[in-house]
């Protein structure tokens, strides 16, 4: 009677003799790698792969219940959230897992860039990696569409509006994107196909190629200042380094990957558990217009950029800059494939990472509170602060009413309440003179609509009187020439200006 161990060995031999994969895969896992790269800085690629697996598993499980029909998608998410046991948790894992994956892929990319690991002979690994980043972002966007709530609906509208700006083929491309003339069932179906079949298929294939190339060339060694990459000598040097200091990737280096992967998975689980599933928001009914559509976190920076582009360069910017950025990322290793790898000797690279990182972070932060958007209900929800009404004449108080009633507060804040699209009005009279206020209100300009048609002369007058009382601690702005003509040429220029009708109690 053979022992259990002997039987297990025999079974293994039987399988491996027929499969022929276990031995080469074990050998690949145990390949020697330079000891210097068994570092916590080298764990992000494997973490991204683990997150991809998490997304695949949770995605398949969600697909068991999700209904990709315009009529039912939104309610099937409600079903998952409310009725299916643990459905909320699966949705939360998949949703937060997606944000984590975008973040880890970006961190991985920054690490590879700063360490110069994209240089010879790993140029193609980088290029495929750029593709993987774009595919990950594509998964993020299409996944957001599958949530099929108000944000998804209007997000598709924004996507279609951007596509429509492409010259000559804008209309066919809009129809191609939407699968018809409007955002409807066919639109959801094709984004479902993209999210579930097309992009994941390419993503898994590309990730496989990416990992294969990492094995083929070996993980890049820790960069040293002054050790230059040269196409003539690099591979020999790397080989020598591996022979001299090499340790088996599994287990000597891989334990750090495994620990970090576990930490990341725990982080996703904790986030999912404590924050719950993302949405769905309101039902995707385009006749419900009391909505302020906003994209998911990975695209907030883009949403913010679109608010700041001047109209005349916007289309060109939208269509050309992304293409240039992608081309630049793809061509980077071809133009900088040799030379220094260490960040201390590559100040431009470090500066680029800082500038791009800060820019994206700033725009993302702006996207979280959208100061450019009017606050649609501020005119009824944010009253004029009491301190701005005290000691005011009836006419001035009437002006405060005009300010509220004409929706000025949707764009202008008082005491921190109200929209931020226009400047705060707390001390407007210290910046603008009486004439300038009237002109600005009636004619608009500087991104403010003209109110000449919406205000009667009496309303304008009352509004102006009220605004003139708002000058904070500073003196009121005045027109020097007016003061001179009214009070004689010997008046000092800093004299208290003419008071229109202010009633002092």
């Amino acid at each position, binding site marked *: 009677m053979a022992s259990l161990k002997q039987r297990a060995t*025999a079974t293994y031999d039987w399988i491996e*003799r027929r499969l022929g994969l276990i031995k080469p895969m074990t050998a690949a896992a145990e390949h020697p790698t330079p000891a210097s790269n068994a570092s916590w800085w080298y764990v992000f690629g494997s973490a991204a792969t683990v997150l991809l697996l998490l997304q695949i598993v949770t995605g398949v499980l969600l697909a068991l219940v999700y209904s990709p*029909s*315009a*009529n039912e998608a939104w309610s099937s998410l409600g079903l998952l959230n409310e009725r299916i046991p643990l459905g909320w948790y699966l949705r939360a894992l998949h949703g937060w897992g997606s944000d984590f994956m975008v973040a880890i892929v970006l961190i991985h990319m920054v690490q590879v860039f700063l360490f110069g690991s994209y240089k010879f002979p790993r140029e193609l690994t980088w290029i495929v990696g750029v593709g993987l980043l774009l595919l990950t972002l594509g998964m993020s966007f299409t996944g957001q569409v599958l949530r099929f709530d108000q944000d998804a609906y*209007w997000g598709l*509208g*924004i996507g*279609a*509006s951007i596509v*429509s*700006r*492409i*010259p*000559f083929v*804008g*209309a*066919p491309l*809009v*129809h*191609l994107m*939407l*699968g*018809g*003339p*409007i*955002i*409807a*069932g*066919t*639109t959801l179906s094709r984004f479902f196909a993209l999210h579930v079949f097309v992009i994941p298929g390419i993503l898994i294939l590309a990730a496989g190629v990416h990992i294969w190339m990492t094995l083929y060339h070996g993980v890049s060694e820790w960069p040293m200042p002054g050790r230059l990459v040269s196409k003539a000598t690099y591979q020999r040097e790397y080989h020598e380094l591996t022979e001299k200091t090499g340790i088996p990737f599994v287990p000597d280096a891989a334990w750090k990957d495994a620990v970090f992967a576990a930490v990341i998975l725990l982080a996703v689980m904790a986030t999912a558990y404590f924050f719950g599933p993302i949405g769905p928001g309101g039902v*995707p009914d*385009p*006749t419900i*217009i*009391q*909505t*302020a*559509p906003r994209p998911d976190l990975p695209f907030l920076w883009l*949403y913010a950029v*679109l*608010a700041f*582009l001047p*109209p*005349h360069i*916007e*289309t060109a910017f939208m269509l050309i800059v992304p293409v240039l950025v992608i081309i630049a990322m793809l061509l980077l290793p071809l133009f900088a494939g040799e030379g220094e790898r260490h960040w201390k000797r590559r100040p431009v690279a470090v500066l680029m990472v800082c500038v791009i990182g800060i820019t994206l972070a700033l725009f993302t932060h702006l996207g979280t509170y959208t100061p450019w*958007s*009017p606050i649609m209900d501020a*005119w009824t929800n944010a009253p004029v602060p009491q301190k701005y009404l005290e000691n005011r004449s009836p006419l001035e108080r009437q002006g405060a009413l005009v300010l509220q009633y*004409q*929706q000025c507060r*949707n764009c202008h804040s008082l005491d921190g309440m109200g929209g931020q*699209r226009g400047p705060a009005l707390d001390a407007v009279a210290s910046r603008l003179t009486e004439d300038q206020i009237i002109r600005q209100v009636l004619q*608009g300009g500087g991104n*403010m*609509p003209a*109110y000449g*048609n*919406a205000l009667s002369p009496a309303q304008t007058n009352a509004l102006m009187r009220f605004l003139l009382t708002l000058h904070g601690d500073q003196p009121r702005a005045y027109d020097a020439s007016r003061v001179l003509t009214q009070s004689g040429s010997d008046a000092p220029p800093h004299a208290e200006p003419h008071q229109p009708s202010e009633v002092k109690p």
Partner: protein
Amino acid sequence: MNQTPEQPPQNPVQAAAELPPPNPEAAHHSRRAFLFKLSLLLNGAVGAALAVPLVGYLLGPAWRNGGTVGAWVPLGTLDSFPVGETRFAQFRSPVGRADDGDTAKVACWVRRISQQQFQVFAINCAHLGCPVRWFAQSRLFLCPCHGGAYYEDGSRASGPPERSLFEYRYQISGNQLIVHAGDMPTLATQASCSEKRPLTQIQPAAAIAASTTSSTPRSGEWQV
């Protein structure tokens, strides 16, 4: 346990390397090589024949000529739109299907200028398509996404939009206001199908403003 005498090859590549070299005659580009090339050609032809309808199917929605889809749909009776006011209205898209659910609903703003004069604005901001809201007191349309603003006649007031609001063509049929609707309005696909004008690309905002303020819309006409 019995061990099988022969050991399996380490991997297929090594196994191939260990085989005896092929017949040198066969290695020359002879009949078999020619047949292989021919088979590639055959598969290329079959592949092309397969691909053309597949690509055609894929591009089907794009081929539909923009401006030919759509139909006239009633918005409501004239009484529901008081003269001098701008009212919210909605209809079911004539190009929607039953299983489109709520997404086949379309909203618009109806401005009645006089007894017979209307303007029917698309809900979609001309910047990036978000739903604009009408504020009757300040006589402005405001967009929640990036803060585009339009005057009551739909012309651009401020913000990122580079043109006026999209408009639907309308007709008055008895006591009914009917509009022509089809495509979702974007800069390339207009709100209603057009027999007269080609799909416009972006125009300078100044030219748009000039064209919208210089002429008032008349029944049966629409503006870009």
